[in-house]
């Protein structure tokens, strides 16, 4: 095959791999002829959206596919054919020569055994060593993966570790027998961004120390840019582009790769820059297209694209950058410059219409589309929802002798939601973002403070009034599949709010549901289908349509795009911005993904352990962050640019428990600037330290003076 390997010896080589799942008379083509290889000591990133076959490819290499999978092609590890091996021989390869880390460390660890026992088990499965020696070795491994005090921690159970520490344990287990190849299947997807940065650094360090090869499977181009030597891009079961990391990010040739890079919200792009949308979705996995798998979604497709399958060919003879595209010659010529105008208009996330009013220094966007440029918000828009010192405490689990300490999920938050604007709420998991949203919607009883809708306070109202108010605020959930009753048709899902509130007859409700589907750019006919028959992006549109059914003023979106693929994310973000402009909605968007927030929000609130630590206009918070926590978060976000790999050390540690928040500033334990005697005793108030920019930090001014702003972030304003 033409895809050339680098000079180093090929360690693992996959050639023309095809995997088909046969189920109930239907064939699902998961991998349709994939070629890739990894050399000793290098990191290969396999990138693709869900359904691209990236994980299946790796599971095939490990012989871990279910019985109904039909595998053909060749997978060679140091010249030995893995597909020809029997189960016993494969077992000796797994673990001993190939180690694996999975996405969710909790479900991969046995909760009833100590971690050292599980690591020792892995060692003893492949090597004939004594119990004592295996235990000693597992303590050593735990130390190597950065578990503090490994000797004591070795005898702890998985649930006693935090998510990031658990993933470290998984890595220790994968390393137990000194594998030559480490396969990491989305190892950081379930982790917070600060912890992700720690894990990325850790895997990279181990790879260098041990000289092993790493295959990092990911959908996150940012992470990939930070650690990969070479990148393989998969789409619908085929490799569409492959090459050295820098080449791929600087000069992506395949229209899919290029589109993916432009569709992804990124922190280093100018604020308010357009997000490109890749229309459509993955091809039906049951069909076997003759030609290029991407042709139906491709702007550059012409006749041969649908007729013949493009081979993965190097751009320059003997070069490492290979592309499977009939038009690679023409496309590579224009690389580096923006591609020629697309057939469909490039869509612009309409957030640049309302600039953050308190950031006059920010450069206006080059060209705002006329439809999305109302008055540039000279005065502060009216406040729709006001949270005042809101507290939500959950009763803790105590024993019968001792009253439990409450879980302080939200602990004194004052926040305004302005009319027609978007407030982004960011923070790590456990910071109380979702609880805040639920309290705003009246789904959670506040333990203190108030939620007021246009001056009317939520708790002081009768049940009927409360129900009435609830209609003015609606919610869009993270996982659209889970937020709809699978037994209802789409039109019933969308019409449910009308039904609950007895608005109109059944026929009128149905008609309104059809209208709403059109508002979110879905065909009316979809109403007759069931949610599981839709794609993820379509389902999230349905969820938004349902949220709009009662003409709310406020739409709360809890991680609205984090369950979606990058190309679909852009579609949803664009839709939300458009709806806001047309309907004058106030959006509260909760996300752990800072790039998404930066694309969509006007104002940003950063939450840490139940408190707001920083609040301000988007450009202030992202461009001139004043709180060390905000800085740490921003530094931890991987930038999809392989030339900017050096970044400050990631924030250490995990967020403390909200049951017993640290005294003083809640962040002081993780803060590099914390000053004893001040930060650990006196909680900093949230003050307007700059006009329109609120920060809860005693030392913000000193920190700002002492450290020059990071050019990466300064450029964003």
């Amino acid at each position, binding site marked *: 095959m033409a895809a050339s390997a680098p000079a180093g010896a090929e360690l693992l080589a996959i050639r023309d791999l095809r995997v088909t799942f046969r*189920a109930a008379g239907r064939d699902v083509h998961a991998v349709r002829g994939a070629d890739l290889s990894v050399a000793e000591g290098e990191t290969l990133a396999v990138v693709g959206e869900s*359904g691209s076959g990236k994980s299946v490819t790796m599971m095939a290499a490990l012989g871990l596919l279910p019985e*109904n999978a039909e595998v053909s092609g060749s997978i060679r590890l140091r010249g030995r054919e893995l597909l020809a091996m029997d189960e016993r021989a494969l077992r000796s390869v797994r673990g001993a020569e190939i180690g694996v880390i999975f996405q969710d460390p909790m479900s991969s660890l046995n909760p009833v055994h100590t971690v050292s026992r599980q690591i020792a088990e892995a060692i003893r499965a492949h090597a004939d060593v004594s119990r004592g020696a295996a235990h000693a070795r597992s303590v050593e491994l735990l130390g190597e993966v950065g578990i503090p005090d490994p000797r004591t921690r070795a005898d702890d159970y998985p649930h006693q570790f935090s998510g990031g520490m658990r993933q470290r344990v998984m890595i220790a287990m994968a390393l137990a027998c000194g594998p030559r190849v480490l396969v990491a299947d989305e190892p950081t997807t379930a982790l917070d961004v600060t912890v992700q940065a720690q894990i990325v650094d850790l895997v990279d360090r181990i790879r260098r120390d041990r000289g092993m090869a790493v295959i990092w499977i990911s959908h996150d181009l940012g992470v990939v840019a930070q650690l990969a030597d070479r990148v393989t891009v998969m789409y619908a079961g085929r490799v569409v582009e492959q090459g050295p990391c820098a080449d791929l990010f600087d000069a992506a040739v395949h229209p899919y790769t290029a589109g993916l890079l432009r569709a992804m919200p990124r922190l280093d792009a100018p604020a308010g820059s357009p997000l490109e949308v890749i229309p*459509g979705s993955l091809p039906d996995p049951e069909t076997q297209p003759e030609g290029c798998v991407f042709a139906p979604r491709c702007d550059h497709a012409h006749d041969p694209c649908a007729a013949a399958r493009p081979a993965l060919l190097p751009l320059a003879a003997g070069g490492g950058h290979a592309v499977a595209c009939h038009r690679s010659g023409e496309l590579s010529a224009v690389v580096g410059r923006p591609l020629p105008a697309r057939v469909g208009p490039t*869509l612009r996330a309409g957030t640049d219409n309302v600039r953050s009013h308190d950031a006059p220094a920010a450069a206006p966007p080059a060209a705002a589309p006329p439809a999305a440029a109302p008055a540039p918000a000279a005065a502060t828009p009216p406040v729709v929802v006001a949270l005042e010192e809101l507290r939500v405490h959950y009763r803790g689990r105590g024993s019968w002798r001792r009253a439990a300490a409450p879980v302080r999920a939200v602990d004194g938050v004052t926040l305004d939601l302005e009319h027609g604007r978007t407030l982004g709420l960011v923070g790590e998991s456990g910071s109380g973002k979702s609880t805040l949203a639920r309290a705003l919607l009246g*789904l959670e009883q506040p333990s203190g403070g108030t939620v007021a809708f246009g001056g009317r306070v939520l708790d002081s109202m009768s049940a009927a009034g409360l129900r009435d108010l609830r209609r003015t605020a609606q919610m869009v959930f993270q996982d659209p599949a889970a937020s709809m009753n699978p037994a209802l048709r789409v039109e019933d899902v969308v019409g449910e709010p009308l039904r609950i*509130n007895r608005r109109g007859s059944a026929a009128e409700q149905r008609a309104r549901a059809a209208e709403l589907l059109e508002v979110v*750019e*879905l065909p009316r006919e979809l109403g007759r289908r069931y949610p599981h*028959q839709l794609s993820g992006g379509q389902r999230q549109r349905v969820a938004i349509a349902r949220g709009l059914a009662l003409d709310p003023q406020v739409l709360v979106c809890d991680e609205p795009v984090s369950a979606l693929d990058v190309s679909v994310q852009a579609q949803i973000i664009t839709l939300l911005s458009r709806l806001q402009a047309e309907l004058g909605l106030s959006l509260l968007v909760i996300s752990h993904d800072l790039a998404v927030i930066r694309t969509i929000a006007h104002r940003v609130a950063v939450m840490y352990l139940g408190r707001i630590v920083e609040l301000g206009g988007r450009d202030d918070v992202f461009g001139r962050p004043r709180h060390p926590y905000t800085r740490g978060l921003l530094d931890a976000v991987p930038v999809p640019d392989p030339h900017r790999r050096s970044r400050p050390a990631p924030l250490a540690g995990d967020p403390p428990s909200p049951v017993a928040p640290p005294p003083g500033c809640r962040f002081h334990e993780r803060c590099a600037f914390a000053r004893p005697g001040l930060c650990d005793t006196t909680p900093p108030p949230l003050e307007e330290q700059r006009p329109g920019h609120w920060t809860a930090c005693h030392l913000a001014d000193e920190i700002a003076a002492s450290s020059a702003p990071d050019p990466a972030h300064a450029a964003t304003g």
Partner: protein
Amino acid sequence: MTTTVSTEPAPGPAGPAPVVRRGRRLRDHTTALGAVGGVIVLALVTVAVLAPVLAPYDPAERAGTPFSPPSPDHLLGTNDVGQDLLSEMIYGTRVSLTVGIVAAAAAMLIGTVVGLIGGYFPRLGAVAMRGVDVVLILPFLPLLIVLAAYLGRSIVNTVIIIAILIWAPTARVIRSQVLSLAGRDYIVAARSMGAGHAYVLWRHVLPKTMLLAIGEFVAAASGAILLESSLSFLGLGDPLQESWGSTLYWAQARGAFLTPAWKWWVLPPGLLIMLSALGFALLGYALEQRINPRLRRS
């Protein structure tokens, strides 16, 4: 903007379905067992409905010599007063099935209501579930006897006693299902749209627990038939309604267990009790494998 109208094709079955082969084998095997159970139950119901047609004699009439062994006239012989045992078996099917089904239905009703409340309203549920625990730890047989003695011997009382004893497991199963449903996003979504408890329970929770309740009902019928037989065997059943259990009671009282008569007096009712309990149990098992989310392939 209109170009974003995603004419995305629905992505077929979402991804590959793993362990399909094993899944199918399991399903084949449960389907076969379920079919056996279904045939048994259907046959028994047919016998109960057609009892007057099928039975050669009126079970209450003295049709022959007392204690006669099986003969062409009396295929299973006669009892101590000369009543035809075969006819008694056929009519007994009516009593056993009626008591079993009615008691199980009542138990399902109680169990479902308690389970729904217990799962949906956590505070109230905590109290309700302690009640369930109490019922679960009660020693069955002594309570059965005390209740039967206290309430008197009638078929209605038998049904009540049995229902009181067997609703608790149903309540637990239903509650666990409701608990898992109550946390779902779509229920939170409905609440955020202003839906009341009644709406949520009726529209989103009940439909998903109904199937489970039916499975539980079939399984409970099996237990109810066994309990009815025990009660009648102890002489605490309705004296006017001859069931399989009471046939055994009389066989025991007349010493048939120690004479060759056990072959036609003791064995047939015993086998019938076993068969009917087995039929419902198999049917219930197959239904449960299909319905219960916890047992469905993970």
